[in-house]
């Protein structure tokens, strides 16, 4: 192994020092929390109803099972969101005056659905459309709940894609057109592939948010993890199932968020 230069040795010492200080201060805070929280008057009650090991053990497998439904809803919504978002973003970029109505629709659409709370859309569509008295299976809250998520999230994804499209320098467009490519081929083969790559991290964050918002469908019926946790809570008169549900969400969303951050950093580095 080559020996370190003076500079490297100095930096290694500095790093060790910084790590030590960070570890020390973190430990101090943790110890303080562990010592102080149990001293609060309500701690015993909170511990019993939120951090109950017995309840946790009993309900956790059932929660995991219910979470499969969250993942399934996510899995069928995500591709449809991607497709609708892409169509909206492309419609937004239309320059042909004959197709202006499409562009206008895209603008109004994204404004409306980004302007509404997700839960409101879920209520309006999830209760409203089945209220028309549709026959089975068309009155299923799974369908209309999913549709609500798709409609809302497509608006966000379209906005992100649009920012990606706009971030591609006009010289790329000029180069493609100068070769005699049509505007639609220019969009499809030159602009979009670059734009989509550029907004992958932002869209990942969007899809992480989607995975969490699937829980909102529980308000109109589907039995997914949040609803299941509520059932357990009533059965056992204990809030620990909610803590279990939270842990399951975190197990998915934290690594995914880290990964999106990692991609974002990598892109920022590549561009500088």
């Amino acid at each position, binding site marked *: 192994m080559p020996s370190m230069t003076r500079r490297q040795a100095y930096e290694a010492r500095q790093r060790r020092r910084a790590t030590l200080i960070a570890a020390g201060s973190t430990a101090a805070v943790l110890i303080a929390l562990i010592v102080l929280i149990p001293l609060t008057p309500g701690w015993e009650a909170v511990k019993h109803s939120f951090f109950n090991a017995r309840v946790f053990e009993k309900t956790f497998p059932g929660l995991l099972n219910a979470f499969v439904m969250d993942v399934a809803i996510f899995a069928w919504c995500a591709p449809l969101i991607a497709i609708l978002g892409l169509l909206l973003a492309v419609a937004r970029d239309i320059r042909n005056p004959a197709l202006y109505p499409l562009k206008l629709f895209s603008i109004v659409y994204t404004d409306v659905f980004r302007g509404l709370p997700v839960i409101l859309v879920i209520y309006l569509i999830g209760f409203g459309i089945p209220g028309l008295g549709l026959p089975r299976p068309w009155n299923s809250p799974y369908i209309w709940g999913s549709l609500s998520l798709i409609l809302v999230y497509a608006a966000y994804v379209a906005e992100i894609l649009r920012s990606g499209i706009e971030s591609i320098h006009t010289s790329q467009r000029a180069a493609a057109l100068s070769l*005699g490519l049509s505007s639609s081929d220019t969009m499809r083969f030159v602009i979009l592939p670059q734009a989509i790559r550029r907004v992958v991290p932002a869209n990942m964050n969007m899809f992480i948010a989607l995975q969490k918002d699937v829980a909102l469908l529980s308000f109109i019926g589907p039995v997914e993890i949040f609803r299941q946790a509520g059932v357990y809570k009533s059965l056992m008169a204990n809030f620990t199932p909610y803590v279990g549900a939270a842990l399951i969400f975190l197990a998915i969303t934290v690594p995914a968020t880290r990964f999106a951050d990692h991609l974002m950093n990598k892109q920022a580095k590549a561009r500088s």
Partner: protein
Amino acid sequence: MDRLELRNVQKSFGQTQILKGIDLTIEPGQMICLIGASGSGKSTLLRCMNLLEPIDDGAILLDGADISEPDLDPQPIRQRIGMVFQSYNLFPHMTAKENAMLAPRRTKGLSRANLDAPVSELFHRFGLGDRMDHYPDQLSGGQQQRVAIIRALAMKPEIMLFDEITSALDPELVGEVLDVLRALREEGMTMVLATHEMGFARELADKVCFLDQGRICEEGSAAEVLDAPQQERTKAFLSRVL
């Protein structure tokens, strides 16, 4: 091969008129150099010839047909007039070869298999046979610019427009790009070049046009314009750049 004729071409951006009436005829096989100060409208003129910018007045004739008609579909015209830019503008998500094959594939309905031989031949001819599968960011500036030229040539254009294609290059890379132009010149390609390379203009140009204040202030053979300019403004410009 067709001649390109500009007649009284005018172009404004907002309130500022950049081109105030340009008349220029490019005969088949000619090489024409546009020189002029920064901001004199060289790039704008080339972009108008490629229909990337619509002109306000006047006409551009290709083989006698007016291609500046506002409601004309520019796509087939652009396929006949290639353009290379100062900043290369390669598509960064495609290999060099894919860059060159995209437009012929999409506009002429040729398959990759059909294009492989002629496109590879272009890469070999310009010394890039071993770089075809590289992405643009894996190539030097000079190599990228040569790929950009190959990409335009793959469309088999009748006329090529070059907009200061060596200005963004390190001095030691300029030569390899100019060699490509020399080779094209020998093949009889019709070319219009905006350039600051006066030596190169002197060596190869059939005609040099000095652009100033939106007009062609002086034109003639390289010897006439560069060595014995008649106009005061040409003299002033040349004394600044030579």
